[in-house]
């Protein structure tokens, strides 16, 4: 099946490039003007933050093969670190605190990644839960992190870069979009380098990787570090551009699982998959609530919505794992292939005649 898929790759790449160009044009040129505040604030900005978080987790879990159940902890570290840099270092440009927050998240990630040097599989997965519980506890327990606000709630500072303040729905959206685009480009470059190959080598065959000379220790910690860096940045977007008021309780295990589900549903080890999965996770509850309200009326309250959402997402995960372990993105590619072929066939014919 892989052999059959590959001849298309060259063509898909150009189609891909075209698609990305169209998407970026729309994202920068159309949506800020045409989109309603609701669309920007409640759909697109959280989608961007989640897509970035999923990208970060995908580097670790999808590419490097180290399952993490504690992503929300690194979202939280990013958010609270940026808050504190902003609060405690005067005149620090916001971009600097953003990157510094990413680095703090990376450092914490490397710390919790240390067990990966001895542990594998489920043992490692369980150890990442320790990050989840420890970080959440520390942020609630020590008032310093939240400047002694009750139950650790923090309010977002304004997003100001080089004197321009990104306020309002459009501003926050554009800020998030730019951060996500740049981070994604850097992640793609990383994956195409030898480091990216090392990640996959580590995932596919650790022993062979070691024998060949892949520096396992460094590669594992790098995977944890880079992944946590990106998730930390996503945490800043989540807290400052989307919610604007957050508390540690918001970064709970459910949030961690939600991010893991994005990459399972979208497609492991696929950047487009992470984006598609995030889009699905944001849009799907909205559609479900509309659909439920239309079909069932008042019975379909928020409680019922939440429960039916859980059921559908759970079922979808099992269904995908059974039918298409490579995720929704593989389904999309499979559907798109005949269409692309039809597009390219008349073209090649016309050049012949």
């Amino acid at each position, binding site marked *: 099946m892989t*052999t059959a898929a590959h001849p298309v790759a060259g063509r898909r790449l150009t189609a891909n490039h075209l698609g990305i160009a169209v998407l970026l044009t729309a994202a920068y040129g159309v949506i800020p003007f045409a989109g309603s505040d609701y669309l920007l604030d409640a759909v697109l900005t959280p989608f961007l933050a989640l897509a970035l978080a999923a990208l970060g987790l995908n580097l670790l879990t999808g590419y490097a093969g180290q399952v993490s159940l504690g992503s929300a902890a690194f979202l939280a570290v990013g958010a609270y670190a940026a808050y504190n840099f902003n609060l405690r270092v005067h005149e620090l440009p916001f971009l600097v605190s953003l990157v510094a927050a990413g680095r703090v998240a990376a450092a914490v990630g490397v710390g919790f990644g240390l067990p990966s040097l001895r542990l594998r599989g489920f043992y490692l997965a369980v150890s990442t839960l320790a990050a989840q519980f420890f970080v959440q506890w520390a942020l609630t327990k020590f008032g310093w992190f939240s400047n002694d606000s009750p139950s650790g709630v923090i309010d977002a500072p304004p997003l100001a870069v080089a004197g321009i303040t990104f306020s309002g729905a459009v501003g926050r959206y554009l800020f998030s979009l730019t951060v996500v685009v740049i981070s994604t480009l850097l992640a793609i470059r990383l994956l195409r*380098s030898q480091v990216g190959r090392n990640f996959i080598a580590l995932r596919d065959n650790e022993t062979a990787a*070691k*024998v060949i000379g892949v520096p396992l220790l460094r590669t594992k910690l790098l995977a944890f570090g880079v992944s946590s860096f990106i998730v930390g940045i996503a945490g800043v977007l989540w807290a400052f551009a989307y919610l604007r008021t957050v508390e540690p309780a918001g970064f709970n295990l459910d949030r961690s699982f939600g991010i893991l589900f994005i990459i399972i549903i979208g497609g492991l*080890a696929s950047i487009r998959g992470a984006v598609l999965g995030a889009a699905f996770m944001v849009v799907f509850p909205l559609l479900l609530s509309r659909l439920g309200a239309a079909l069932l009326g008042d019975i379909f309250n928020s409680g019922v919505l939440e429960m039916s959402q859980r059921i559908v997402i759970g079922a979808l995960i099992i269904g995908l794992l059974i039918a298409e372990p490579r995720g929704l993105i593989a389904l999309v590619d499979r559907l798109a292939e005949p269409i692309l072929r039809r597009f390219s066939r008349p073209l090649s014919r016309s050049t012949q005649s």
Partner: protein
Amino acid sequence: MSLVATSGGDALVLARTHERAAEAAREAEAAPPAAEAALVGGAPVPVLQLEGISLSFGGITALDGIDLAVANGEIRAIIGPNGAGKSSLLNVVSGLYRPDRGMVRLGSERFAHVPTSRLAALGVARTFQNLALFKGLPVLDNVITGFVHRRRAGFVRQILSTPQARREEAESRAASEDVIAFLHLDAVKHQLAGGLPYGVQKRVELARALVARPQLLLLDEPLAGVTLGEKQELAAHISNTRDAYGTTIVLIEHDIGVVMGLSDRIAVLDYGRKIADGTPDEVRSDQAVIDAYLGVAHEGETELVV
């Protein structure tokens, strides 16, 4: 390090000399041990030397006082029935197992436990019995990764694509393209390794091991599980590898037939002990080998354990 320093040209000359010597010996119908032949070529230090290697798993002896010297440029087969300790021996040499007793000498360094993470830098590469490819990487990237121990640029440099990172990437890519052409893998180089037929995957693994031009190549059952045609093809690739790159090759095999034509010398293991070590002809006529490996024919049994 000194292993890597030996230039390919020297090794090639050496291999040729050794071959000529072996040929002459064959004509004289009294083949001298390959180690001596290598001495004639002027390389007194064996590439690999095992000194009294013993290994046991929870009371079961896998290896018992194995001595072995592999000369530069030779193809050395290690054969033996199932469970004779062949794979354990290879795992000791590559550091995946730590022997209970004994030393492994690789070039000028001696180890009680070979450091696996330094193996590639020591000029040693290996393949695995049940394939250990990176299935999610294309063939080309699998092979490029075989070059990883030579790379120095850190991940930030790689993201930023500094001149150093670019040069390293170009070097490893060029070396990989070479090996891929050498092993006739051009047609599949952009395909994911995991989707290829078994025989082709074996060749990809060989390419990945060869790309860094190792001084010593360890092959764990390179001919097992492939069709007869592929077997001959792979055997040809193995001997071409020695001839073209001057690589010293140690291979483990189950199939005694192919090994006879391919190797310069053969060591035979049985129950963790070395029971014979010599040229194919010597081994073929060795009574202990016939008893242990080919079945006890002189007692009237004709069963061949192959």
